[in-house]
């Protein structure tokens, strides 16, 4: 009896230990929960955040194994063996960039739209990505 009680108490404690913090930090920083591209780099935003259900998108587009396509180290010569997954784009693409860099908004727009145009699938007009909630 006390053994069972101890087991339940232990399980309860463990659950609380793991669930409790997530109530405070919200969703963990992982691409499987990602539904929009949220970044505070732009400051005052002009548009609602772009829709991008990370994993579902990449499965539909059949690029779920090609992290390097988007998460490159050098967009001009992306290396299939090397992915920068986990690094936000803004780390290498500042909002106000030097002349030889692609600024952040253009980096997103170019990466997303070039592929959609090429594949003739996926959104290309402003409001298709910047969907109002």
């Amino acid at each position, binding site marked *: 009896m006390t053994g069972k009680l101890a087991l339940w108490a232990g399980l309860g404690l463990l659950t609380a230990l793991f669930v409790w913090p997530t109530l405070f930090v919200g969703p963990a920083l992982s691409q499987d929960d990602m539904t929009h591209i949220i970044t505070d780099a732009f400051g005052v935003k002009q548009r609602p955040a772009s829709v991008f259900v990370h994993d579902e998108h990449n499965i539909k587009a059949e690029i779920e194994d090609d992290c390097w396509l988007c998460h490159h180290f050098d967009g001009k010569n992306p290396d299939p063996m090397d992915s920068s997954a986990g690094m936000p784009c803004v780390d290498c693409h500042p909002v106000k960039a030097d002349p030889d860099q692609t600024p952040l908004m253009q980096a997103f727009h170019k990466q997303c*739209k070039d592929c959609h145009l090429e594949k003739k699938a996926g959104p290309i007009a402003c409001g298709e990505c910047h969907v109002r909630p």
Partner: protein
Amino acid sequence: MHSIYTFVTGPLVWVAFLVFIGGLAGKFVYLTSLAKNKDPYVFSYLHLKYALRSIIVWLIPFSTRNMRLNPVMTVVTFAFHICLIIAPIFLLAHVIMFEEAWGVSWWTLPDAVADVMTWVVLASIVFFVVRRRVVPEARYVTGPKEFVILGLVALPFLTGFLAYYQIFDYQTMIILHVLAGEAMLVAIPFTWLSHVMLYPMIRGYMGSEFGAERHVKDW
């Protein structure tokens, strides 16, 4: 969606701008050659200083007697024309599209400001419609065509607004918006919207004749 959207935002934009600019250029050549044949003195009267003086004076609110006599119309007309011209040229979305196509960009308005300017344009057009039905001297020169043309000017702003707020089906609305803008551009050379060019031509001539020849003001 893809093929229609890329068509209306690609080749069709070229067609619209070519007809707009080519049409106005053609009209200019036609009108000046007409004047050369019928009334060649028009050209001997032309005087740069007085032409510019008249054009500029008529661009300043309440500078002319007629503007002071109709203060409401003056305020609405000026607000309307300023918003009509400034909002589309400096709209963020338009500039982004130019930048992505040609790599050129320029200063932009915050979307919230462009929003208010769109309201001003639409409200002004409602005012013009009411005025054309109510004020006798305006009603006298108004036929169905006038309302169609006012509608043609309103449509790009109305559809742009609805697309921006994603009211009704977005994909349909954004394509309608682009088509409406192109239709308005194409209509300019062939309707009284050509006052975008006739205004400086006529003021330039009137200013020259009144200023340089008769030595009086034309306002």
